[in-house]
């Protein structure tokens, strides 16, 4: 009995150590992720004098002036508006055109389907740098240069293939009998697709939208190349902080923090679906 008790406590302390190593690993990893972000926030709340003159782990002289600068100057905050406009446009376009295509790929076999699918995916592999110049020329020649729709369409290059691919994965998981039952019940294709099928893969649509939003929001090369004033994204506006008087670090940091906010909000809203979402319907 005595050594039984010893065994038990040994087993328990072993379990405790195991839990701790997990927590420690995650703690270190999250620290690694958050420290640079914290530093950005820290800087955004300091004055330029404080940033340059002293080194402190937290703002001694707390100021919101950097944020005020951005939020009161249209040439700053319109950058956010522009970014959000083309990101939302791109997400909507990508999903709307990807839905029927993904359905076709998941349900039917037709001439050239495999090649077409692969060709679509290759566009996800196209380096934006390759397309920067031709896009510039193409959109200039059709008069779309410096418009939101130009950026939204350009981002379709990589978002549409991705959306098709993600949605196809989710649609494969829906039994075909559902389609057949609906047709037997007299649904037309359009009504079936909108009323029955799309709600069934709502989580897939959410995941695809999340990824479209993400990749459109974070991209800079194409959006910068295709805009000059009217549709200039916030990410490009940030380069303004370099002026004759040197870097305006505080405003740069504040602008950076503000670009993280929409992403953080999106993540917060989908937090319960992230794990499933990253499986892309393929687990």
């Amino acid at each position, binding site marked *: 009995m005595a050594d039984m008790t010893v065994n038990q406590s040994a087993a328990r302390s072993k379990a405790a150590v195991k839990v701790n190593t997990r927590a420690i*690993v995650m703690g270190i990893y*999250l620290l690694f*992720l*958050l*420290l*640079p*972000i914290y530093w950005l926030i820290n800087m955004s709340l300091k004055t330029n004098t404080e*940033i340059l003159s002293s080194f402190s782990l937290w703002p001694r002289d707390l100021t919101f002036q950097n944020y005020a600068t951005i939020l009161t100057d249209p040439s700053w905050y319109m950058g956010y508006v522009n970014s959000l406009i083309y990101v939302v446009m791109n997400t909507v*376009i990508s999903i709307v*055109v*990807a839905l*029927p295509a993904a359905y*076709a*790929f*998941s*349900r*039917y*076999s*037709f001439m050239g389907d495999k090649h077409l699918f692969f060709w*679509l*995916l*290759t*566009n*996800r*592999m*196209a*380096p934006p*740098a*390759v397309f*920067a*110049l*031709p*896009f510039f020329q*193409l959109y200039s020649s059709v008069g779309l240069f410096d418009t939101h729709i130009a950026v939204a*369409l350009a981002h*379709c290059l990589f978002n549409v*293939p991705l959306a*098709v691919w993600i949605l196809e994965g989710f649609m494969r998981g829906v039994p075909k009998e559902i389609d057949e039952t609906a047709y037997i019940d007299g649904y037309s294709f359009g009504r079936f697709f909108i009323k029955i099928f799309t709600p069934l893969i709502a989580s897939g649509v959410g995941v695809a939208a999340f990824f479209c939003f*993400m990749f459109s*929001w*974070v*991209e*800079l*090369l194409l959006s910068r*190349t295709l805009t000059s004033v009217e549709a200039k994204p*916030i*990410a490009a506006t*940030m380069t303004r902080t370099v002026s004759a008087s040197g870097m305006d670090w505080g405003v*740069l940091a504040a602008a950076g923090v503000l*670009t993280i906010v929409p992403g*953080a909000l999106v*993540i917060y809203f989908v*937090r*319960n679906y*992230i794990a499933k979402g*990253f*499986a*892309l319907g*393929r*687990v």
Partner: protein
Amino acid sequence: MEKTVNQKAWFLVLPVLLLVAFSAVIPLMTVVNYAFQDTFGNNVFFWAGLSWFEELIESDRMWAALGRQAIFSAIILAIEIPLGIFVALNMPKKGFWASFCLVLMSLPLLIPWNVVGTIWQIFGRVDIGLLGYTLDKLGISYNYTQDFYAAWITVIVMDVWHWTSLVALLAYAGLQSIPDAYYQAAKIDQASRWNVFRYIELPKMAGVLMIAILLRFMDSFMIYTEPFVVTGGGPGNATTFLSIDLVKMALGQFDLGPAAAFSLMYFLVILLISWVFYTVMTNLDKREG
């Protein structure tokens, strides 16, 4: 699932086809056009044949950039894939802490790429950045704008910071799909932790890991914004990866012909490698199904 043959399905694919044709095929044709022509200015072009490609093949600059690119992609894959798996294995399985980790880990993924660059540019500065300042105070000479190794390490650590979570989240999704019974059976069979990983977790993660490798390979091979913001491709050409070199050539020097030839080669290399991955992946899918 058995698929029915239906040629009318083409109509469903048509919108995608038109859109992608507009946003991919037309620009690509422009590139092809430039790749085979030369100009003396004033929009007068003449046929140049394969001369741009010949020049490209012989160009040390391109090979150097390609070499740097390959090393970079290899290093970040070698770090991010195992690290991502390791993180995924240590994540809480459910409850508040699971959501907590998921939310914080997703954060870097939704930061615009130039802001990622800015964050590390600031973080690594010796005068105002936490990392640079600390290293400097510890007596380690660190200057990513001057020193070759410092520049590389900064760019790699930045990419690990930026993208490991993607690998971890994919691996985590794979792990979540393993029924408890597998772990229980392994306990009964007295499988070691390593064997549980090797024979249960890894096979179940294989599918998502292929996706992770594919995505990380493609995106790292196309990387432009983040290193450009931090190092501008320097010091010298130390961190001038393919995309950076290409943009320099096309938008900076306006060398359209060579840049176009470069573009095509670049695209083909990515396609070739991705095609290999794709084939492996679909074969894996088939074996499982």
